[in-house]
């Protein structure tokens, strides 16, 4: 068992605030990695090809060198997704953890050609009772004018550890839309980094997280704006019940030269119990004059008035709460165009709020 200190913020603040990184006790990073076979791929075509020829494991940030090196040296799933479709085609990659497939070290790389379009759905799901370990790396290179829509689902169970490092590079006029549904894991620790180097490139990141029991979420999102007129929008909606904890660290960094760039970051946390905890560090770093940066952050319980209104329509309190949470999440869930998947997410919300 190890004590891990990981997911460091790009800029440190006082260590008394306990947010520069997260310390996890009693975590075992497996050394002898078993094979993982439960992978389902749907929608592969001549325009979206998937093979195992990944070629880039380097990360600017990442969660921790030990985890990055594990992916470099011991990945038991390597998937290179090459996009050449001009119309929005969809590809799905699903990993299901069970007793025989409980350790996944995956490296997914997505490369788009210029002016292509695609939707990539990546789903991690763990069956109840499995003590799974997941350490994943997703690297996306969105070339000039390409439009990539990524839906990432973390539906792990509450006895698993989920580590995720995500890095994106955006060229001129590229448009990357990321939707993250972050529900599972005893510990769900994720690092998202976007390098908006191309002029007029755009990155939208929408996340919903839902924590229960003693789940811990540590989200470290970093957007670096380099290209002129580049734009990033980060929207995070979450709900915490029982003794769940969430650390949200969001950084929008306007680098010198990103003239007329803009960045917005909005994080809202609904506290569904008086023992749930929300810690947030929404940072704006700015070395360029002609930019517009905004962030907002809020936390609190479900509004009494709204709850009363719904209950006056005949709903029980628990149902009314569920409706409120779903209503908050709805804007982000609507990004999922695949109906089956959308229903799956709604079902998971209901299940996790029961």
């Amino acid at each position, binding site marked *: 068992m190890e004590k891990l200190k990981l997911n460091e913020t790009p800029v440190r603040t006082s260590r008394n605030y306990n947010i520069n990184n997260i310390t996890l006790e009693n975590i075992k990073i497996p050394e002898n990695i078993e094979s993982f076979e439960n992978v389902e791929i749907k929608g592969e075509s001549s325009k979206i090809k998937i093979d195992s020829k990944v070629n880039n494991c380097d990360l600017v940030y990442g969660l921790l060198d030990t985890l990055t090196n594990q992916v470099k040296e011991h990945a038991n799933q390597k998937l290179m997704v090459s996009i050449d479709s001009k119309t929005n085609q969809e590809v799905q990659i699903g990993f299901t953890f069970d007793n025989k497939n409980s350790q996944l070290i995956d490296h997914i790389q997505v490369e788009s050609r210029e002016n292509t379009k695609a939707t990539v759905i990546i789903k991690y799901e763990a069956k109840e009772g499995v003590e799974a370990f997941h350490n994943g790396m997703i690297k996306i290179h969105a070339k000039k004018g390409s439009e990539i829509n990524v839906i990432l689902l973390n539906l792990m169970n509450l006895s698993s550890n989920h580590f995720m490092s995500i890095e994106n590079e955006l060229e001129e006029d590229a448009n990357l839309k990321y939707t993250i549904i972050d529900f599972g894991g005893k510990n769900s620790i994720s690092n998202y980094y976007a390098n908006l180097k191309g002029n007029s490139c755009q990155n939208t990141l929408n996340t919903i997280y839902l924590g229960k029991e003693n789940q811990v979420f540590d989200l470290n999102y970093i957007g670096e704006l380099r290209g002129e007129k580049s734009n990033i929008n980060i929207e995070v909606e979450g709900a915490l019940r029982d003794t769940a904890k969430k650390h949200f660290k969001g950084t929008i960094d306007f680098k010198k030269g990103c003239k007329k760039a803009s960045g917005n970051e909005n994080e809202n946390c609904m506290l569904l119990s*008086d023992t749930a*905890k*929300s*810690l947030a*560090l929404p940072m704006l770093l700015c070395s360029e004059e002609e930019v517009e*940066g905004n962030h907002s*952050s809020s936390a*609190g319980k479900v509004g009494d008035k709204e709850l009363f209104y719904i209950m006056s329509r005949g709903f029980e309190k628990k149902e009314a709460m569920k409706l409120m949470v779903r209503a908050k999440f709805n804007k982000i869930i609507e990004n999922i165009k695949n109906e089956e998947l959308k229903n799956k997410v709604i079902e998971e919300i209901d299940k996790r709020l029961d």
Partner: protein
Amino acid sequence: MAKTKLDEINRNIYDIKNKDEYDFKIKKGLTPEIIEEISKQKDDPQWMREFRLKALEVYNKLELPTWGPDLSELDMNEIATYVRPKTSLNSSWEDVPEDIKNTFDKLGIPEAEKESLAGVGAQYDSEVVYHSMKQELIKQGVIYTDMESALKKYPDLVKEHFMKCVPVYDHKFVALHGAVWSGGSFVYVPKGVKVDIPLQSYFRLNSPESGQFEHTLIIVDEGASLHFIEGCSAPKYNKVNLHAGCVELYVKDNAYLRYSTIENWSKNMLNLNTKKAIVGKNAKMDWVSGSFGSKISMLYPMSILNGEGAKTEYTGISFAGKGQNLDNGFKVVHNAKNTSSVVNAKSISKNGGKCTYRSLVRINENAASSKSSVSCESLMLDDISVSDTIPVNDIRTDEVEFSHEAKIGKISDKTIFYLMSRGLSEEDAKAMIVRGFAYPISKELPVEYAVEMNNLINLELEGAIG
């Protein structure tokens, strides 16, 4: 379009250097012997001497912060921590030596005392050289004196509160302060007494390669109220000077304290000051803060809302120019039910200056029905400056209303266009926008300080429309 040029603040008044004359200057460095010597020079009681030595031990154990501005240029072996000016404490300006009096005259302190203050304290290097207060307040039982006199006249009151609000192990520079503190003001406002006219202390550091470590201890007893103003400045030298003062404020139940600061240290100063208030039941603590000077500033006033219904408000502005790194902000801990905090922070960066807003809002488990609202805005006036916002929001219970918002940007072209369409020149339009940006802060300051702030901002807008 040509760039709008903002000139550096005119510092002529603040940069007046007097000859480095003193009655006693401790040798540079930080050893137990030096601390013993300071204690001896100050004729400390035994407990204070022991306290200083203990604080030095803590200082030696603690590390420099691993975050914020780079403090590597600070070499305590090159700083004299105690400089006693060549005069003792006076209660009449006539008795203050001519050159020191002239300095304070030019800073407008005696004039302000006549016109708009109920009491004044003036510190020069390590000791307070002037202290006085209006008779009415003395009759009401208000105490306003220098810390050294307080230590001798009110030993129990001082011992009960001294560095209890800000313990020496809070951080390295508080420990340093505990070891070498000298000067500062002590205020006690008895129960129910409302001090309507402000008290003001002004801190002036003249001696080069030295530090100022004044201690301000204010107790506003139940139901009482006070407005305290603090000003600070120093002339510029080539080597680093250090300011590591400590402000401890006790705002008892139902009391009110407003603490206003205009900090205008010279550009060779490292300003590592610590300010904290403990706020009682239904009491209110307001901070108004203008930060203009210093090479490096790390200053985060803090309110601990310990009593039910306690409130605090922070209104602050930082203005960083060439070579300045101002890392300022506010901390609040909600530690009882129905507490509330409102933060309104602004910053302006220009000519390569760096402003950072760094903060903490913590709403503890026992602070149900508390509210906190934070707003920070940063204005970038050119593309060589830096502006960062690093706020931590730590919410530990559900029955709260918490919101935080921040904005970074330049002066909006649309607004300039609108004002120009109303007949203003581009320069006037920009000046108006910057003044408007700073107005919510300047309107909270006493008039003479608002004037000083406007002088400090001193927007000499040049540049042409093109």
